């Protein structure tokens, strides 16, 4: 439990750093943001791994170049899908956990309400506090699929389904901002892909300046707290933070 709390704390701190990095003078520091995203990934993994579930090795993108990169299709071994939709790998009801941060909108979507209500630690408390992230319906479908077949392959494919990362602006292939947003895409996996499909065009376009990057970052950051805020004590402490992020 201590590890989970520490991991959660590290995730919060990391998100804060990514968020505040957009405003700093001199532009995004690629090196620092890469390191922060690596820490975020590790902490997120630890946080989401439960007792009884095998601990997941570092995600493919973090591994040596020989490992298959995350984007191309070949279905990876069970472990590696972890970071994509970590909950799915563990238990049946687990996939819904990913939705429970946004179960508010799941509730509004109707069909899922009963299933969500069955999980006491994922209740309306979060629904009341956090405004609905728009990507929820997408996540719900991931959860459904996660339940149905091999929970591993489907989420990964689902991650590949969304449109490719937004094209660089005005043919500028080397936009640092794009690169970093794309890194964040890989971090947040399917939740972010859901985000992409639901966001209005204006937001999806890669940010030309730090201001627009902010629009993407808090929104995708919101998916993170959404995913992990299932434990109630943690939930209560986290909500003001996630609310603030989303509100911004």
């Amino acid at each position, binding site marked *: 439990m201590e590890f989970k709390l520490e991991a959660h704390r590290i995730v919060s701190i990391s998100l804060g750093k990514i968020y505040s990095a957009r405003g700093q003078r001199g532009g995004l*520091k690629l090196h620092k943001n890469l390191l922060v995203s690596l820490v975020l990934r590790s902490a997120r993994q630890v946080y989401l791994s439960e007792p009884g579930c095998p601990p997941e090795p570092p995600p493919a993108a973090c591994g040596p170049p020989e490992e298959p990169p995350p984007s191309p299709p070949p279905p990876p071994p069970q472990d590696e899908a972890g970071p994509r939709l970590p909950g799915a790998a563990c238990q049946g009801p687990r996939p819904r956990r990913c939705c429970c941060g946004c179960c508010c909108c799941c509730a509004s979507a109707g069909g899922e309400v009963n299933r969500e209500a069955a999980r006491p630690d994922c209740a309306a408390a979060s629904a009341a506090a956090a405004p609905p992230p728009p990507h929820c319906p997408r996540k719900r479908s991931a959860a459904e699929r996660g339940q149905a077949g091999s929970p591993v392959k489907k989420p990964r494919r689902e991650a590949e389904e969304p449109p490719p990362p937004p094209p660089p602006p005005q043919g500028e292939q080397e936009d640092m901002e794009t690169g970093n947003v*794309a890194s964040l895409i890989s971090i947040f996996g399917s939740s972010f892909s859901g985000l992409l499909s639901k966001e209005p065009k204006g937001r999806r376009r890669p940010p030309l300046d730090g201001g627009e990057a902010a629009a993407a970052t808090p929104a995708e950051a919101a998916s993170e707290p959404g995913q992990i805020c299932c434990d109630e004590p943690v939930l209560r402490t986290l909500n003001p933070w996630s609310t603030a992020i989303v509100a911004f």
Partner: protein
Amino acid sequence: MSQKQVGGPPGDNSTVDWCLYQLNGAAEFEVSEADIISTVEFNHTGELLATGDKGGRVVIFQREPESKNEPYNQGEYNVYSTFQSHEPEFDYLKSLEIEEKINKIKWLPQQNAAHSLLSTNDKTIKLWKITERDKRPEGYNLKDEEGKLKDLSTVTSLQVPVLKPMDLMVEVTPRRIFANGHTYHVNSISVNSDCETYMSADDLRINLWHLAITDRSFNIVDIKPANMEDLTEVITASEFHPHHCNLFVYSSSKGSLRLCDMRASALCDKHSKLYEEPEDPSNRSFFSEIISSVSDVKFSHSGRYMLTRDYLTVKVWDLNMETKPVETYQVHDYLRSKLCSLYENDCIFDKFECAWNGSDSVIMTGAYNNFFRMFDRNTKRDVTLEASRESSKPRAILKPRRVCVGGKRRKDDISVDSLDFTKKILHTAWHPTENIIAIAATNNLYIFQDKVNSEMH
């Protein structure tokens, strides 16, 4: 505690006592961010010392030549020239401000009376020429003393202009501007031993330039993945071999070093040698990757070894051994249990530099609380010294400091929790031949000399 410290030529049992020679910079409460020193570099003879700061300025100090008349001024580094190297710029396409902070300065070997150096910020490298003028011509026929044209009717005889001495004037001119070579932030530059080319490295690419050509450069390393989502490591530092003009090394954020040979191919993406130490699994934590990132790499003067600095250690690598470093020194291992707090306050991202002494027998690097450390490779002794106004009276020998980790605490020890993490020594330089070191502590430049050295003058 014994005053014996590290240093001295190899095989020599004499020890080095460091004392403060001079201190430049305003008192701490007057610091503005622009004054923070961001790089320090001696030239090849040690006669000149250049510093760059966050405000884009370069200050060059020159060592006073020895003179019997003023024994106390000998060896003193006085301000020789100050100039604005880089200004803040704005990239309109990306709506990004480009900082004027000087990331690195490298001196060119002196080839004539003028001195030249390269200075770089995040995007642009500039070649500066520093010349002296101590004479001026007087007695022109057509111009008067102010330079105005004379009325020809007043000219009755011809004279030959003569050179008369004048007050020394140091002129600095930008001779080349190497712009638009980098998309990412430039972290290092290195002049080749051929004295014709140099390289500049950013997070993902390394470019080779000719010193006389500014409108093009050759890309020699490119580690940008086709899909930026696959990015896992960046280039953190690079340097040319001191003697072999075809060899260079670059370090990565994953803690590895790659030695590349430019004779092998035009694009050196494939390394000739990869230096990597397997991670110690018992030390694994969330921050293992961050602390293994190499912040600086330096070839030894001999060219046989490389020195790397990561967050907690300095390592000496033998060019002939790729599997592990030949020596590892702990700089401040007591921070290992505090990594989470250091991550929170961003200190874990601090990039410390490292340096060799002239004979490659001692290595030096900075730490927190204005401490800096020296490791003697021969005696295996190490020392922690402090650069602060309070603890350094001029000409008094520096007292070794100790950080206590708990357990028995001696007088004058500092506990880990009282360390001031805002006082960090990131930039240090060692004179190429003598025991003189320059330490940058925020906005202050400390110059320490070997007491024996300074007394001889």
